[in-house]
């Protein structure tokens, strides 16, 4: 049964009044800034409010821009200005090195045993110069979505294992579906010049054995023939199996085309799984996910860029203790389980990958466990505060190749020169 609209308004008004009376309210108000991609904001709000109810505090949930790049810019400004407005920040896995100095060292607040309940690689990603600046909330890795019904219709029994197979399958399905649906495309992904393109392109290059732009020792490795081959492959998709507009697509643009039933394959993060299976989705029950294809070359391998989000406490927070308590609640076993079941957010605790409830809600989590654990990190740990410049130079070069404005070799050698300048005497 639906609650009538006026009742909601009345309840909200009572709630607002209650918040306006400081003497009556116990506890403090903790502000958390959450993401807004897909249903992220609602999940965050529900979790934070459950914590507030349990502890007798209040939470204020702020939405932040959809684009990762814009969100970082906003956080940077707030933190550089020393603002105490936000207590808990949701930060990308590549930001601990960039923003680390603005967050408290969680080692001083939490039991060391808690740390061992998370994936060690993620704890390592959150540790900068020995300081634990965030706790991993959910992890992410790029995966391939494919339409099971269409694969069957065109005589395929398994999803593509190599990029060549993907291209052939996408082309055949697209040609067939176009007869009825002129808007149909084979493969959609993230091609706009922003951080998302860095993730996609890292997967192509790594799957060709072309490295991770900057290697673990900090050497610039991106200008190599394998990376060039990977980019040439991606360029060949544009306007054949991928819409020309893909060069302006972010995650939600790609999902818009995919979820409307206008694409056979999509590269995206796991959050799109639950959304694609929601009640009003035209492709509900008609798709599955698998690991991204690899190159057909001998040293080709499957690759998934490591994504994921952490919760960090601002050093300017006026309620650090309560903020840490909120972080511990949200990253706790039960809350992560709820998010895994209803939102297919990938848990950061290994124990949840053996939980029967989680596995029955999202079977792919068990199947793709190895992919998630072995996901390829972007070179943010090596490049630290200069990561943004590295990534921006990289995605700009890749975008110019995809647009056909620059030849692959020229773009890569220019990128190498640029990265050398950014590196200077060291990262």
């Amino acid at each position, binding site marked *: 049964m639906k609650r009538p609209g006026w009742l909601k308004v009345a309840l909200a008004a009572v709630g607002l009044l209650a918040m306006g009376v400081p003497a009556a309210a116990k506890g403090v108000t903790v502000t958390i800034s959450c993401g807004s991609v897909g249903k992220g904001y609602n999940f965050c709000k529900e979790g934070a409010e459950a914590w507030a109810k349990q502890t007798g505090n209040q939470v204020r949930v702020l939405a932040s821009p959809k684009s990762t790049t814009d969100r*970082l810019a906003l956080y*940077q400004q707030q933190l*550089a200005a020393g603002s105490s407005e936000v207590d808990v920040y949701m930060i990308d896995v590549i930001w601990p090195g960039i923003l680390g*100095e*603005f967050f408290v060292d969680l080692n001083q607040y939490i039991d060391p045993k808690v740390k061992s309940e998370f994936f060690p690689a993620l704890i390592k990603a959150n540790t900068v110069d020995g300081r634990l600046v965030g706790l991993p909330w959910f992890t992410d890795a790029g995966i391939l979505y494919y339409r099971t019904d269409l694969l069957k219709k065109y005589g395929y029994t398994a999803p593509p294992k190599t990029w060549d197979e993907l291209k052939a399958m996408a082309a055949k399905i697209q040609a067939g579906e176009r007869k009825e649906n002129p808007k149909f495309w084979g493969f959609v992904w993230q091609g706009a010049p922003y951080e998302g393109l860095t993730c996609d392109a890292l997967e192509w290059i790594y799957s060709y054995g072309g490295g991770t732009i900057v290697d673990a020792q900090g050497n610039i490795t991106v200008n190599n023939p394998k990376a060039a081959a990977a980019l040439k492959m991606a360029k060949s998709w544009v306007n054949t199996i991928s819409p020309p507009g893909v060069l302006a697509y972010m995650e939600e643009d790609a999902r818009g*085309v995919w979820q409307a039933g206008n694409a056979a394959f999509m590269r995206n993060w796991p959050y799109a799984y639950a959304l694609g299976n929601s009640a009003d989705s035209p492709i509900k029950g008609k798709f599955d996910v698998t690991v991204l294809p690899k190159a057909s070359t001998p040293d080709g391998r499957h690759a998934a860029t490591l994504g994921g989000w952490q919760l960090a406490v601002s050093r300017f927070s006026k309620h650090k203790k309560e903020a840490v308590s909120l972080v511990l609640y949200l990253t706790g076993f039960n809350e992560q389980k709820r998010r895994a079941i209803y939102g297919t957010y990938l848990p950061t605790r290994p124990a949840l990958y053996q939980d029967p409830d989680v596995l029955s809600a999202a079977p792919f989590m068990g199947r793709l466990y190895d992919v998630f654990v072995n996901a390829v990190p972007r070179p943010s740990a090596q490049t630290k*505060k200069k990561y943004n410049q590295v990534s*921006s130079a990289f995605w700009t070069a890749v975008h110019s190749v995809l*647009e056909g404005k620059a030849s692959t070799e020229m773009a890569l050698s220019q990128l190498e020169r640029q990265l050398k300048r950014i590196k200077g005497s060291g990262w």
Partner: protein
Amino acid sequence: MARRLSLSARRARIAWAFMAPSVLILLAVAAYPLFRTFQLSLFRANLLDYPLRPEWVGLANYAYMVQDLYWWTSVKNTVIFTVASVSLETVLGLGVALLVNAKFPLRGMMRTAMLIPWAIPTVVSAQMWRWMYNDVYGVINDLLLRVHLIAKPVAWLADPHLVLPAIIAVDVWKTTPFMALLLLAGLQSIPEELYEAARVDGASGVQQFWFITLPLLVPALLVALIFRTLDALRVFDVIYVMSGVNPSTMSMSVYARQQLVDFGDLGYGSALSTGIFFIIALFVALYLSVLRVEVD
């Protein structure tokens, strides 16, 4: 030297006293930030350091700027954007101004309606146009397909050759009304008697336009051109919303923002801002010298 000040000296002194408040305000809101920006441009400083640790580097930021290809790309984009948008806006704005200057029923309503694009905040209208330009569900492709002007959908914002023209079109749509408004004011200041005299002398409509309207409109036209050119050289919002930081379209302001905000590079970002200041100053100087000649 005479103890009593001469009349002109006293008048100058009073003039200064009256101007003092505005001079002070200008110093506070324009000169000081400009000075700080220039000062910062001589340092290497990162917004991400806590606490901030500026380091003196002299003119190193400027030395890099001179050979920074992305900076020169952004200068080129800005100049293309400015020249194309301002000239189109001037021609179209003049047309609209002549039209609504004529006497016809509902003229008042027409004059109000024409201002609508100018009244919508740029961020809102840019986002609206972004959707209209979409290659899969955009209305522009739909319309063009229906009238058979194009055979298949065009990815306006993803094609490197189309994205800047597409953005210029949005700016022209938005700013033509402003141009028309300024020119309409100019048109209305031309005395009606001149046209009467011309008609008595047997001048045709075209002749009236060339020998009366246009010459007398020059001062208004120049003022409008200066306004628009300076505005266009600073362009940020429409480009940033529609295509982000993309070398095919980024303007000087978009590039400086990326350095300052995304990279937290206060030093180089400030050097770029100073560069923008000097480029705009150059245009102002050019216009002022032209204006003086024309008006005198």
